[in-house]
């Protein structure tokens, strides 16, 4: 694997639509559950160990070559919120465009044809990593990191939070990120033997509830 390739894929400026999504932070801010850096840290930690872990495992499994359509179905079942399924497919479609432009591959083309409206983003991300010559750990790291970097940048905009504080939150999550990426890759390696049920399905109730509340707003800054 190329460490430099990993940096390109993990770059927050990778043009795959992430900037328009807050990862549930806009809803949490509006509900008064996130008011500063300390809440942001707990929010990110909770998201990382739930939807972040699930995303990382799906991405790792896709990077290992598990059938992406089977993973897409597994992602649907692990994403009970309809608003979050919509957001995941929207982002998956955007990731697909960027991935096909940067690391073209027949596998990406096949998934793009099978899911023209977008597959779940972590699945596309994992397949993009695979096309880029990256491995399951790499894919898991990118997905896990995205699960917290998105909310952190969003909260900087939503609360005018000091960007240094937000970045410090991410830095302090590094040990958790390491563990989640390792767990995710380990689960993904069990899929050939045990099927997609080996992938985690961790959930965070207020992320699911908040996503539906947010989707119903008439006016919002972020798409999710």
């Amino acid at each position, binding site marked *: 694997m190329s460490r430099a390739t990993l940096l390109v894929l993990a770059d927050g400026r990778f043009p795959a639509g992430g900037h328009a999504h807050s990862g549930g932070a806009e809803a949490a801010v509006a*509900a008064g*559950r996130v008011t500063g850096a300390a*809440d942001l840290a707990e929010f990110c930690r*909770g*998201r990382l160990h739930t939807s972040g872990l699930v995303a990382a495992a799906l991405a790792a499994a896709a990077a290992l070559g598990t059938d992406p359509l089977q993973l897409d179905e597994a992602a649907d*079942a692990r994403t009970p919120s*309809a608003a979050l399924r919509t957001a995941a497919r929207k982002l998956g479609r955007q990731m697909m465009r960027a991935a096909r432009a940067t690391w073209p591959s027949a596998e990406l083309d096949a998934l793009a044809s099978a899911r023209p409206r977008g597959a779940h983003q972590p699945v596309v991300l994992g397949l993009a990593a695979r096309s880029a010559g990256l491995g399951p750990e790499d894919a898991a790291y990118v997905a896990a990191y995205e699960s917290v970097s998105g909310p952190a940048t969003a909260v900087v905009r939503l609360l005018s939070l000091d960007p240094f504080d937000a970045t410090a939150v991410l830095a302090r999550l590094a040990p958790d990120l390491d563990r989640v990426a390792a767990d995710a890759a380990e689960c993904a390696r069990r899929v050939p033997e045990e099927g*997609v049920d080996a992938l985690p399905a961790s959930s965070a109730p207020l992320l699911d509830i908040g996503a*539906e*509340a947010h989707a119903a707003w008439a006016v919002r800054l972020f798409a999710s």
Partner: protein
Amino acid sequence: MGAGAARRLDRRVSVPVDTGLRAAARIRAEADGRGISRLPVLEGEGPLAVRRIRGAAGQARVALVGAMSAPLGGDRLTVTAEAGPGARLDVTSTAATLALPGRPKGPAHYDVRLSVEEDAELNWAPEQLISAYGSELRVTTRAEVGAGARLLLREEQVLGRAGEQPGTLTSRLTVRCEGRLLLDQELACGPGAPGGWDGPAGLAGHRAIGQLVLVRPELGQHPVRARMLGELAAVTPLAGPGLLVTAVAPDALRLRRVLDEAVGVVGG
């Protein structure tokens, strides 16, 4: 009476001190062809006593009776409820299930296996599961729903008895429709659960969590519209013939209120 005392009173189940108790309950309803659902299998043991109670016309109705406080650490309890083709089964419980710390170290396991065969209907709505301080419980609920079948599944978890810190509770709920995975959801709370479980993404201090799953063949073609029920509960269509209500609340009473309201809204 403490849990230990209650345990000694039960003669039917042997309780090896080191490994905890194993107990199973089995319920199977079958349609008799004249619109009546019978209960050819109705078995329970130890903490999992079962009793037939009066149900709606033609329906078989069963209550899980809290014969003693369980599960304790090390215990393995399994409940199987099946509605055979065309049968209508309703399962409830007479009291909340209380997870308590036990002498053998290690978690207790509570497995629920639900099977709703072709054109059958199963309502699974036991009372709350309360995770007492110091307890460690792993709950798995698996439901298999056949063609044309209908399922209502309600789960409520309460973290800690009144004013008490929670125990450690993990649960995994999977629902399959005609073999295809409809819902797979894990939840982990309490001491030892991954970080942030009680933070602004998780429970934010709420101590009661509930899920209501509804599987209806018609929901495949006409999914329910996603909507909020107050600030802390949402109805959402699943990616298939079902819907899910997720709710958090400060306590069990308020949780039940919102789930009851949800049943009214989505037409349980």
